[in-house]
């Protein structure tokens, strides 16, 4: 267990591409920190710098208070689970897990004990003599996990460890990873671009965009009060609706002339955000939706359409049996505190 502190680090790849222009992040001991963001935003780059697989251009990374910038990956006391698992194809499951221990000259009986314990925890007892290619995708994933935990490192680093699994197995493994991490209490950084995975796993959620941190916080806090329009659109599924309008001291006037009372604003162009699941039918509601498509998901239905008088796309997640049909017009509203106001130009949260 160790805290990880990332202090104004910068990454410029050879060739001059600046991928991370200066980023700081503190992860407390025992915490599971999830980095989430769209493809290419620098999540893997950041993780690989912590692992020592990528050089840090500027700034400092400390693990357990010790500066690790110039240490070899092996000397950083971390272990990593790769997206493709990176199992050694010519070694048995046992040897895959024991490799790191042997390299550290651990006595044989202790290696045996540790590998057996890890295999037991992951349900791999019967597979220790197999080669990776004789395993299913889910089993391979667990071997990769096993290889990471036998070393009992100060920190785990995960780079999209579940993205090669099918949807069902992903949910199951996600729960297992969470349970395992809590039981071991090992500080972890987990990279994903799946916002659902991020929400369910994280103690601390870090939303990244173009090499910068957009917001850090507990997952529910980020969900309820996204700091920027980007975060608001990225976290949550289906994504938040944005209705363009003009702010006044009394509220927001949408582009179709409808007023929504929201005290505390000053003025200027804004995007009024509201989550699909926060919208509900109300004959007196301010949001008039012309229904285009209705997707029935079982428990709920996603109603897609346009804000009347504008071309802003809206999705509302409605439950119940009395669902509208395409072509209908629907009046919707959201509870107080469910409206999010962002500056239209900067995307900064105003309210």
């Amino acid at each position: 267990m160790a805290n990880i502190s990332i202090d104004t680090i910068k990454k410029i790849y050879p060739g001059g591409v600046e991928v991370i222009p200066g980023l700081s992040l503190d992860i407390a001991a025992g915490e599971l920190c999830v980095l989430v963001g769209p493809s290419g935003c620098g999540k893997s780059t950041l993780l690989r710098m912590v692992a020592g697989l990528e050089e840090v251009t500027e700034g400092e990374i400390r693990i357990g208070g010790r500066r690790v910038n110039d240490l070899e990956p092996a000397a950083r006391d971390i272990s990593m689970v790769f997206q493709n698992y990176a199992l050694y194809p010519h070694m048995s499951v046992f040897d895959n897990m024991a490799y790191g221990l042997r390299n550290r000259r651990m006595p044989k009986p202790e290696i045996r004990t540790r590998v057996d314990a890890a295999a037991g925890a992951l349900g791999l007892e019967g597979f220790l003599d197999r080669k990776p290619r004789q395993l299913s995708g889910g089993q391979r994933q667990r071997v990769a996990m096993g290889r990471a935990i036998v070393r009992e490192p100060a920190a785990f680093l995960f780079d999209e460890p579940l993205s090669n699994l099918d949807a069902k197995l992903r949910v199951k493994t996600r729960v297992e990873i969470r349970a395992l991490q809590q039981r071991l209490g090992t500080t972890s950084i987990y990279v994903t671009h799946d916002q659902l995975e991020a929400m369910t796993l994280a103690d601390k959620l870090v939303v990244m965009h173009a090499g910068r941190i957009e917001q850090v916080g507990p997952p529910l806090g980020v969900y309820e009060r996204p700091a920027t329009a980007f975060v608001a659109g990225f976290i949550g599924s289906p994504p938040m609706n944005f209705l363009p309008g003009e702010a006044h001291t009394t509220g927001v006037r949408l582009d179709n002339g409808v007023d929504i009372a929201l005290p505390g604003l000053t003025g200027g162009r804004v995007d009024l955000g509201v989550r699909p699941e926060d919208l509900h039918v109300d004959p007196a509601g301010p949001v008039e939706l012309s229904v285009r498509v209705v997707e029935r998901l079982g428990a709920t239905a996603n109603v897609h359409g346009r804000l009347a008088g504008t071309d802003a796309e809206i999705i509302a997640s409605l439950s119940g049996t009395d669902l509208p049909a395409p072509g209908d017009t629907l009046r919707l509203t959201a509870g107080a505190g469910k409206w999010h106001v962002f500056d239209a130009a900067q995307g900064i949260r105003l309210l």
Partner: protein
Amino acid sequence: MRTKKVTFRHRWLPYLLVAPQIAITIVFFIWPASQALYQSVLRQDAFGLRTEFVGLQNFARLFADPLYIKSFFTTIAFSAMVAGLSMLVALILAVMADRVIRRATVYRTLLIWPYAVAPAVAGVLWWFLFNPTIGIAAYALDQLGYDWNHYSSGSDAMALIVIAAAWRQVSYNFLFFLAGLQAIPRSLTEAAAIDGAGPFKRFWSIQMPLLSPTVFFLIVVNVVYAFFETFGIVHATTSGGPGNATNILVYKVWRDAFEGLNLGSSAAQSVVLMVIVIALTAIQFRYIERRVEY
């Protein structure tokens, strides 16, 4: 009925299309091979006036001939050294290139050059370099206190043809090694680095085992090369000398036929070589079917 008619109409087209290939095979392989087989059971007198059928006598005499046995061992030593040297150098270069892969295209282009040089030219090139009176390499060795002379020293002569033959294979081996190394996912060596393996340990415990199919393939290719394609090099540098020290099998075939004028024995030697190449090819095919287990 209809389908049959269509099949009939195109009956000669496939044959026509493969005809050039078949013609080449017949002219350059089947015909000489059958000639060699035929000659190997005949004996001509010294003037070529009389030819008689002698059965397997040519073969029996061949394997009773200490010079032939010696040539066999010379060839085995030669090909082992050529394969070993060229693969070792190529592997070192490939590992280095793999590290700085962005520059590998330049590397690759440069390293393909020797392969484009015909064996005889390569031979002459090395002959010049190592010529005891005018060669720059011989001069350098002389400066280091080694009296190089491949005209009098059998081991010097062997070293010369090994270097000349290996040089040409380095580029070929390099390409295969580099491709093999590049095919190993980078994350594997990264995982090993995190697992506490230093660069050498990583190479021996991860990259080398995963490269073993390539190594096996290249051993066969290089041995075939050393056995059969090095005539030009020997002819241009040592001519099998001094005192048969570099008289490898392919060279002996030629020398016995055209200098010794012993066609029957030479043909029998060709047949032996043919059997060896068939055996090596069979090993190769078996390997392609099964792949090396790791």
